[in-house]
């Protein structure tokens, strides 16, 4: 039936012909096979009741979950916004095709692709079944259902955000933020409020059910953070939450797929000088957003100022709001750290704190960095910059610093939590300094890698998706290896791989459970700095080349 939907056919066939799809499918197939091969028993016999198969199955399940989280949202996130910018969405909406057909065509084509992506891991999952100790009904089947549900949920989220975004990279950024929120932040109510009862507890449990983590923990039998915070939902609840969220977002998106609703006026810009409201705006915003800006001062890099001004949230009044928001988050973290440090201990509270900061940096950094050069090339601005006397070096410094300062601002605003920890346990001073250095290294890595990727991409959406991919491999991929510590990865190999991840270095400094045995600093800093230097060298060469005559 769906095969007769022209949108479905075009989307599916178009994407199946793309080399990016082939690369994604191959990557999942190779990664799942390698994981099984590495964990395959080398002894002649294996006890069926042993945990041998589970040792293969668990990392495979988490790796597949990460793959779905990384790969599935990218396509729907750029789908509708790209069509709208090209003007083809208007053509579709003015054709006899109904908004529901357009929506289903796009949603189901993406789900079909995800199905192909998941199905390439079936041989690896069958290998687990063959080993014994893993059942089709209790483990493999539910896992495949959860992965498919995740694909449906993230596709619906991506399409919903895509319809509301003005650019592909903004849509990608918000979609990944939403995926992160659904997967991780949805566990927040239970983490913050503990095991609640009554209506509030019921709501908290259902919000938590939006995250696939509890479902995965139930399927893989891992007793981790989920059980300690009182999470009692499983994969059935996750399916229920997925149906609800997908249906809700589907209705909203289809209703919004209307040519009249999409006909939005472009903001023309308004500058009011000398009006009565100016004083009020100064009080409300601290910086009057409607005041004409003064020229770029001589001592500032004009490219850096331009980068700030062209960012939606780069204007001074937005930066003030951003810092205020970070300060509020910081105060909450500080309160959490203060109470948590006293009752749970520093080790317990520092881990989530570090992970939250890194998640924030990973969310904001790649989208800013990946925009730097690719957006300039895409808009035609690069061609104009090339015929001006500005040097490649000045362009590079201006662009990179514009992201670095923003990231540093975000990092600084989230630091007071550590100050509270140091105050409560003064002996922690040294460790906290090392954590801060590790986070600074993380900031540099995020900025340098995403800027480097940007210089090699012709579209911002490709640059953003690639940057997210590379950074997630470094930051989350290394944690996957850590999850599979013991077998097949020995402690030395795990330690070496964790050295590429400054977040792991910060966790080991705070003696977070599972990271106590590793000594990652200062080696991790040197590795991080080397990666940054290498990225900057490649970026400089590329930018220099791009400013030279053809």
């Amino acid at each position: 039936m769906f095969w007769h939907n022209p949108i479905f056919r075009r989307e599916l066939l178009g994407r199946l012909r793309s080399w990016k799809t082939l690369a994604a499918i191959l990557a999942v197939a190779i990664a799942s096979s390698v994981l099984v091969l590495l964990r395959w028993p080398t002894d002649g016999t294996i006890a069926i009741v042993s945990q041998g198969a589970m040792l293969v199955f668990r990392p495979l399940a988490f790796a597949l979950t990460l793959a779905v989280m990384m790969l599935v949202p990218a396509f729907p996130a750029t789908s509708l916004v790209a069509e709208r910018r090209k003007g083809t969405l208007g053509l579709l909406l003015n054709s006899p095709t109904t908004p529901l057909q357009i929506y289903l065509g796009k949603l189901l084509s993406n789900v079909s692709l995800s199905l192909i992506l998941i199905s390439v891991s079936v041989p690896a999952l069958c290998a687990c079944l063959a080993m014994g100790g893993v059942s089709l009904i209790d483990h493999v089947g539910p896992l495949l259902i959860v992965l498919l549900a995740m694909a449906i949920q993230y596709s619906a989220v991506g399409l919903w955000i895509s319809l509301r975004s003005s650019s592909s990279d903004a849509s990608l950024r918000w979609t990944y933020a939403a995926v992160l929120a659904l997967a991780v932040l949805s566990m927040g109510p239970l983490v913050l409020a503990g095991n609640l009862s009554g209506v509030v507890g019921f709501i908290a449990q259902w919000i938590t059910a939006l995250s696939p983590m509890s479902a995965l923990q139930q399927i893989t039998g891992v007793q981790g953070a989920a059980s300690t915070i009182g999470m009692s939902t499983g994969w059935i609840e996750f399916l229920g939450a997925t149906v609800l969220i997908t249906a809700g977002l589907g209705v909203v998106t289809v209703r919004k797929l209307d040519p009249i609703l999409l006909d939005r006026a472009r903001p023309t810009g308004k500058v009011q000088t000398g009006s009565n409201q100016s004083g009020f705006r100064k009080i409300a915003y601290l910086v009057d957003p409607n005041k004409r800006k003064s020229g770029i001062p001589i001592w500032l890099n004009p490219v850096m100022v331009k980068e700030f001004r062209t960012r939606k949230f780069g204007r001074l009044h937005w930066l003030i709001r951003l810092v205020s928001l970070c300060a509020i988050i910081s105060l909450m973290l500080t309160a959490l750290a203060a109470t948590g440090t006293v009752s749970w201990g520093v080790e317990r509270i520092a881990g989530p704190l570090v992970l939250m900061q890194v998640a924030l940096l990973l969310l904001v950094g790649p989208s800013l960095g990946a925009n730097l050069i690719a957006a300039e090339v895409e808009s035609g601005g690069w061609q104009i910059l090339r015929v001006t006397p500005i040097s490649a070096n000045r362009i590079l410094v201006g662009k990179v610093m514009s992201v670095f300062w923003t990231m540093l601002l975000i990092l600084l605003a989230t630091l007071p939590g550590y100050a509270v920890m140091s105050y409560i346990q003064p002996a922690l001073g040294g460790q906290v300094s090392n954590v801060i250095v590790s986070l600074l290294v993380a900031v540099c890595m995020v900025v340098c890698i995403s800027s480097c990727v940007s210089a090699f991409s012709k579209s911002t959406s490709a640059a953003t998706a690639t940057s997210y991919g590379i950074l997630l491999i470094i930051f989350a991929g290394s944690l996957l290896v850590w999850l599979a510590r013991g077998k097949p990865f020995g402690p030395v190999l795990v330690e070496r791989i964790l050295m590429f991840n400054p977040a792991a270095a910060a966790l080991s400094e705070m003696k977070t459970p599972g990271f106590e045995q590793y000594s990652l600093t200062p080696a991790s800093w040197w590795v991080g700095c080397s990666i940054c230097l290498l990225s900057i060298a490649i970026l400089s060469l590329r930018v220099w080349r791009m400013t030279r005559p053809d």
Partner: protein
Amino acid sequence: MTNTSDPVVQTQNLTKRYGEFCALDDLTIHVSRGEILGFIGPNGAGKTTTIKILVGLSRPTSGTASITGVNCSENASKIKRLVGYMPDKFGSYDNMRVREYLDFFGAIFGLNGKARQKRIDEVMEITDATYMQDKFVESLSHGMQQRVGIARTLLHDPEVLILDEPANGLDPKARIEMREILLRLAAEGKTLIVTSHILPELARICDTVAIITGGRLRAFGQLDEVMRDLCPLRNYEVQLVEIDDMEKANQLLQQPLGDTQISVSKQERTLRFPTADTEQALAGILQSLVSNGIQVAQFREVASDLEDAFLSVASGAKSS
């Protein structure tokens, strides 16, 4: 003092090859101060390649290009200050107002403080863009964006302006405004190189034209000279009062014109023919029509335009 007839822009045997493909073949042109050169050619003719070499974005395989004597490929940094280039793609930035956009480029060109603000006011006045200074660039219409683009190219007061398809996508009113701006700039002594597909538009502003197809220069010179060279036959039109006289008039015209193809439009009561005859011979034709009792409403030359010249060159290039 600089002689106004000295070439400001000059290319000598300019050639650009991409592997086996020859994008530009032996191009030699020159433009004097205050002149407007219309650079005409179909898509892929080599116009943009020439422009890229002139603004220092590309290096020629052989030959030279210079602006006010400065070699374009050897001294790219000097060229950037001598040329104002407006590509066919505007290059706007999101969330940036017109004044901020011009301020950014002013800062890049090293204009500082009050001098920069004064220059921004000046260029906005030249291009009639002052009223849009607080609007977001991306919210402007195409015509308004083109004006901001020209304002940007003028910021550093360059000697030469190179505009790639400035009239592309503009409505008639915006096109007239653009024409006025370009003529004003030429009158102020700027040298302009303008490419366009809208040939009647170019014919109204250009002093000199260069027609290029397949990377080769097919015609170059003053507009009227090029027209004379490419369209040696003039088109004449005879409009009659009575439709019944059409046949008789056709026969009378055939005698002096010989094998010349005469096109007849009964609805318009008009006969049209190309001829290289002198004025006296044409006066004789008119006299013969009148003396034979044919009432002539109009007997006039239909001016050939740049489109005819371009089509003549393009068809010649295709057949060769």
